[in-house]
């Protein structure tokens, strides 16, 4: 644990998590409550440290609650992709033959589309909203797990202790659970941390374009889009959600890099 970047990443990530969790206690304002008479107050206004938006909603409250939403979407998506991609990867790696072929060809097809485009297309089909954005991101993102984990499984199952356990008559499912899974776990954690920031940024991009989470829910992406209309007179509307997004993505990425270096130096490029 002597990496400055690692500590920085961990620090930022923890801060974001704590701040998001404590959002309702950090600001007395409701992020949805508009007060049309006090619109576009600049940062530093009494009661509104980051100012207010065009509808008089407190920007600090919106940025903080935006953090909750971003983390929520990030965590949910990572969990879903981890389970779906992980199981498919394990099966594909362990049972080779046709399950492997089917899963991997599907993955190849999917990888030939850009991630964000695919996520948006799926989102356009399944419809807007919080649940559907998680669904679309997951549907577009499971491939990475499936591939990484299948690769790991292929190598782990050739190890002597796996052969030994199999020779002693251990069932396939138990083998997978007791001996293979624990050995691919570090990779799962590393991929999760790296995917996490990608999902947060992708969600922001999709919300920025008007898909995804719909107003008035405070999502950083849609806040950026709304703020853009007022860039000339109220820079803070776009600046703070943008900064929050950038810092969060940076923090999680640094943490992910460090985790990767620590757990699995082989993955270093």
């Amino acid at each position, binding site marked *: 644990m002597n990496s400055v970047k690692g500590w920085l990443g961990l620090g930022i990530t923890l801060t974001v998590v704590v701040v998001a969790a404590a959002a309702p206690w950090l600001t007395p304002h409701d992020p949805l409550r*508009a007060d049309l008479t006090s619109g576009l107050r600049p940062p530093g206004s009494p009661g509104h440290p980051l100012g207010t938006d065009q*509808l008089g909603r407190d920007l600090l409250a919106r940025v903080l609650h935006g953090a909750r939403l971003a983390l929520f979407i990030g965590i949910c998506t990572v969990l879903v992709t981890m389970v779906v991609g992980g199981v498919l990867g394990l099966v594909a790696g362990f049972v080779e033959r046709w399950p492997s072929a089917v899963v991997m060809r599907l993955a190849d097809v999917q990888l030939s589309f850009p991630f964000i485009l695919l996520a948006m297309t799926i989102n356009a089909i399944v419809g807007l909203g919080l649940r559907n954005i998680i669904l679309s991101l997951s549907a577009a993102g499971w491939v990475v797990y499936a591939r990484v984990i299948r690769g790991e499984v292929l190598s782990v199952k050739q190890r002597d202790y796996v052969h030994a356990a199999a020779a002693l008559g251990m069932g396939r499912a138990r083998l997978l659970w007791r001996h293979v899974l624990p050995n691919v776990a570090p990779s799962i954690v590393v991929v999760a941390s*790296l995917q996490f920031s990608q999902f947060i940024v992708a969600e922001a991009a999709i919300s920025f374009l008007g898909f995804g989470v719909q*107003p008035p829910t405070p999502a950083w992406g849609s806040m950026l889009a709304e703020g853009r209309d007022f860039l000339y007179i109220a820079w803070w509307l776009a600046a703070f959600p943008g900064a929050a997004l950038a810092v969060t*993505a940076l923090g999680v*990425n640094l943490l992910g890099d460090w985790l990767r270096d620590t757990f699995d130096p082989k993955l270093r490029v």
Partner: protein
Amino acid sequence: MRRSSLLAVLFVVVVAGAAPAQDRARGKEIVVGLGAEPRTLLAVTIVDWTTNTQIEHIYDRLLDRDAKTLKPKPMLATSWKLVNDTTWEFALRQGVKFHNGEPFTAQAVKATFDYMLDPASKSHYATSSYWKPVKEVQVVNDYTVRLVTDKPYPSLLDHASLTDFLVMPAKVLKEPGGVQKLAQHPIGTGPFRFVEWKRDERLVLERNPDYWAGPADISRVTFRFIPEFSARLAALLSGEIDIMKDVPPQVADSVDRSGRAKVRSTVSSRINYLALVNLKPGPMQDLRVRRAMNHAVDVEELITQVLKGRATRVCGPLAPTNVDYAPVECYKYDPERARALFKEAGVDPAKLTLALDTPSGRYPLDKDVSLAIAAQLQRLGITTNVMANEWGTHLDKIKNRNTGDLFFLGWGPALHGQGTMEPLFRADQTYASYGNNKVLDEKIARASTLVDAKGRAAAYAELQKLVHDEAPWVFLWQQHDLYGVASHVDWQPRADEKVWMYDAKVTPR
């Protein structure tokens, strides 16, 4: 994956209008920045201001309107008279030529009518609120044409002087594939000729040197399509465009101070409203709910706080600019009354979730107004999900009756009663959100045939009262059109919303 954090930073930096200012010749060219592109270049097809304000530069109408009084005046028709209750006769201008050299005669008027009224053309204008009452077009001679209607139709002159009738060349229209040709390369008699249409980017027109009223001062008009206010503003301030539609009220002062452009504003004949859709199942079927909505939305607050006073409240379906206007009492902002009405209707506002469709960038601060309305409804506990649509999608949703319970729309130029009442309050009409009210249907049909001024005034006054009481909309306001006009351009906005570049002049720089 590192790229993702870079992307995030990029978002912050994405200053709208990042496209480099074009190096256009500083000739007598005017670039107009609009929020959307035409939905077609084919004349007399779509009821949509954005489309028609652009293509009317290529075409002429039978009649024009005076910029100040908004009264009909000669254009392609030099005079008109009522032969009997159902027959209008127009004397046509001689010596006018289409851009392809074809002479303009009564045949062109007839061919355009025939094309438009043909059900196969699927024109919005073939409906009863526009030209369906015209049952026959008689060519008396080359320069005299008669329109015979199936009932007295005093609104005919109003429609003839708006973009509801743009005359297309008879020969091209009748040849096989002629309609497709005109859709791709419109040919009219207007002051500008078509040059090119780059989808999603620009429509370019050049001056018609042979225009019958004399060539325009400017040599070229380019309409650029820039959906976001901020991007249009950036383009105006960087000199990329010369005229910007819909300057957000909040930035009007900074435009005036910029030294590059001035804000010119006018009270538009266009009204904005929040439709309470009763053409599909939902809570808006109930009159009490619709009235409650009118008491729940604080229109005055929206005007002062969101639009910074740049709008004039209207309380019924017509605005004072409309010749058939009669005053009605405003619904007062009264949350208690609204609660009581909701209760009476058996609707619990706290459990009510509404969907509101809004365009984004088509009307002044349309999306922000919609969000503010959602915030006001929230005070009663109503959850309103706002859906911001691209303009074309928004219109399609309305046409296909696919919107949420509420949608935001503007209607204009709204200069005569029939032009608002019939298209918006009858279920079979393209943009209607409310209808199937037998009493209203009958009274609208009757009012539109009244020639006598007194009877017509009384009929429309009654209709306005009726519509007000039925609360098909939350009645909002007449928008004030704010245009940003570059300092070297001499052009005044008009209440009928024509962005008419024939009148514009450029001071050479």
